């Protein structure tokens, strides 16, 4: 993450390139987390993450601050790339196992925590794609409500309301489990 983007030629990086490098460093893991949460497919998420950053890099000069923050702009590109991937595949991928699960650490967790985690994952899996996207944007990528509103094309208050409803739905599902 400490590596900086270099300029294409042997000249000093432009202001747009410097800003993009900062955006890349600050958002790389968040973009992956959002895309992986939306697609539920690690391999596809890696492809889409790389594609999203490449698209954003090519269009870095087209960013307009009046239309939102840089992160919202980047996540809009990532969202389009992810939805394009969904259209292309036309299939529903299963959520890739998290590394934490793969290394068997679940066995070491307390039984109560493990059960709660399992219930939460089941509840997330029961969400619709739009609801899961909101969860991914809010809790995986760490976007604010204003940025989420920009990404999905709605108002900030509407985005907040939707997120609250999703949380209520998840809580009910977890409580019922």
């Amino acid at each position: 993450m400490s590596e900086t983007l270099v300029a294409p030629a042997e000249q000093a990086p432009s202001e747009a390139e410097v800003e993009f490098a900062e955006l890349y460093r600050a958002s790389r893991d968040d973009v992956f987390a959002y895309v992986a949460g939306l697609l539920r497919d690690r391999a596809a998420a890696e492809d889409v993450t790389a594609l999203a950053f490449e698209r954003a890099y090519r269009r870095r000069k087209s960013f307009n601050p009046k239309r939102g923050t840089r992160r919202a702009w980047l996540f809009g590109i990532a969202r389009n790339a992810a939805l394009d991937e969904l259209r292309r595949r036309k299939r529903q991928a299963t959520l890739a196992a998290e590394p934490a699960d793969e290394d068997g650490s679940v066995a070491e967790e307390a039984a109560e925590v493990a059960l709660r985690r399992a219930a939460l994952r089941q509840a997330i899996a029961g969400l619709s794609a739009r609801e899961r996207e909101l969860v991914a944007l809010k809790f995986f990528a760490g976007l604010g409500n204003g940025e989420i509103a920009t990404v999905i094309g709605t108002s900030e208050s509407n985005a907040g309301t939707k997120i609250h409803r999703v949380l209520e739905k998840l809580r009910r599902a977890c409580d019922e489990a």
Partner: protein
Amino acid sequence: MRLEELERELREERPEIEPDFATRLDEWAARGFPRGGELDPRRERRGRGPFGLLPARRPDPGAASKRRRRRRWASGDALAATVSSGLLLFLVVGVVALTQVETGGEDHAGDDGGEVAAESADSGRQEFTPQSGGDQSEEARDELAPAVGQSSRFQSFSDSDAGPNRRRQAQTVSLALATPPAEFRESADGVLGVVADHNGFVMNSSVSGGDPEVAGAKPGRAQFDLRIPAGQLQAALAALSDLGHLVSRTDGTRDITARFESAQDRIETFTATRDRLLRQLEEAFTETEQQSIRRRLRIVENQLENAREDLARAQQRVRMVPVGVTIAADESIEDESGAWGVGDAWGAARDVLRVALGVALIAAAVILPLALIALVAFLAWRLVARIGRERALDEL
């Protein structure tokens, strides 16, 4: 479960990026996301396996320069290329349109000129009469004599076509030409050549001064009184106008229909009188009576001959048009043709701007509708893509 607790656990569910993928992505980013590189997802989609498991690619010696070229293309050159392509298209469309316009004009002129040339060659003896439908012939004559200016509004016809209601018009034309002093003699000699070429003749001529071999000679001045067949008048005027700079042209027409009719009436009257006198002469018994009739007959025959001469002169007046040509040597003409000054530059610049504006207008007329269609198609494509994406999210 409390909301705060749920939110914390959701954040703990966040998918973490694989360190290996993160490293490769950082390297790709550090190189400026070159297309076709090892981390380019599009290469993976062409069948190279999952993104993070791509095999190492054999190094390409020219890859660095290719990447630089691609980056330059993607950054600044793309805009320049787009603008250049647009301008080129703009220019090509304009030039093609202008070429088509000019070709159409030349064809039109050529057709008319050919018709008029044939008409003039076949017309033979001609006289002029007012014709309301003579515009086409007039236009054609203008093209034959482009420097002459406005041509006569009369269309030629042969004597055999002359009906009782035809008006007989006698034309007169006078031209004033100016030539550079050095070309004065050549122009004056050229008048005789034009007259000969068009079956005319010189009634009077006067050429003075302008001799280049005489030191201190007066400026040249020449006057010609010519007769040109009406059928070849326009062609002759065009040729005469080419001999120098046309300073002025004066066209005159006079209706001599009454003169025609008077001569014809007198001929008929005198012919009838002569016939009647001849019959009286045959019936006369006395010598005195016969001498009296013969005297009257001679008078009538003289009058008849005069009437016929009047008619012939009137016909000749119509058939052969008097053309006065004045040629004067003018030093300012030489100055204008020899030097290229600010006025000429202004005129050339004006012509260039006029052509450029014409090209721009024509090209805009072609390109703007195409651009509008392209814009609508682009917006429609974006709308369809957006709908498709949202639908994909709903169908997941």
